[in-house]
């Protein structure tokens, strides 16, 4: 093994994100949240799909534009039907349960995770949070 891999030593630091993973270990920034969403009126599953696809795309593009590396961006919508979105930096893959397309929704649980290398947790958190809010606001 030519590189040094950290063994959980006390000086092990998670505070210095860097893309130089070939020479030293670097943890990615992680944004991961669960939201219970309730809508005033029922919305179509397609609107939810569009809003969340927009979010995944925005985080992906922002990451790529800033020369950061996408680890994995993923979304799961949990309710009577389910939706799974995922991107590792290029396409956005969409999978859903059988009845998803015909479903209209007043409440769902939304889980989102973005794992990105080369930036601080704080920066990712701010960008991801703001973008998510804007995308969800577009639903109603």
């Amino acid at each position, binding site marked *: *093994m030519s590189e040094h891999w950290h063994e959980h030593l006390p000086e092990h630091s998670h505070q210095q994100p860097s893309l130089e993973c*070939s020479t030293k270990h670097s943890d*990615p920034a992680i944004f991961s949240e669960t939201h219970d969403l309730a809508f005033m009126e029922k919305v179509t599953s397609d609107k939810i799909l569009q809003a969340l696809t927009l979010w995944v795309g925005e985080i992906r593009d922002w990451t790529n534009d800033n020369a950061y590396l996408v680890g994995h961006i*993923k*979304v*799961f919508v949990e309710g009577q039907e*389910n939706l799974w979105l995922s991107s*590792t930096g290029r396409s956005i893959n969409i999978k859903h349960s059988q009845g998803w397309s015909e479903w209209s929704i007043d409440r769902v649980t939304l889980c989102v*995770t973005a794992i990105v290398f080369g930036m601080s947790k704080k920066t990712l958190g701010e960008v991801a949070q703001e973008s998510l809010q804007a995308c969800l606001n577009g639903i109603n």
Partner: protein
Amino acid sequence: MNVLLFGGFLGSGKTSIILQVARYLVEGFSTRQLDSDKPSLVIIENEVGEAGIDDKILKAEGLSVRELFAGCICCTLNAELTVCLNEIREELSPQWVIIETTGMAFPHKIAETITKFGKGIDSLKTIVVADAERWDDLSMIMPGLLEEQIVKANIILLNKIDCLEPEQISDVEESIRRINSNALFYAISAHDEVDPQIWRMAVTYSE
């Protein structure tokens, strides 16, 4: 208990593959526990991020899943995992246990711990998924992590070959082989139905 330990970088396709392997195992091997309400397969999920997503994807398919939360995603959560495995054995004694490690973990280190401290384990295989679509990029940016994940795998699944041309697939295979020439190697696309023969070989393989 037969343990399949899945590793491989973030987003390489571990969960997508586990969905197929789980279906194969539950349909093909579950005769022993047919009359019992105990599952013949239990999946242990260790994922990056507090909002667990993979466990929900697997549960939505009717699979039995236990979550493990990692304090530090790059460090092997050895103690918790061993406790979890031993609990599963005592409570459910399933025929199969699949473990999905985080995309930053070193599966062989986890395998060492399981071998040392796990009880009642009949077989343990380390299956590492490599991402064909991102192989070139990732092996430039973090070669050490990829190598360390792959070097001691029993089985290597080069996934997402639908994204590459045949010549590119051979090139990636060659560079993986340079890291680990002993492992069983399969090039697959988990977006399609994978040939069940590959799952059969992978789960019954012994060195």
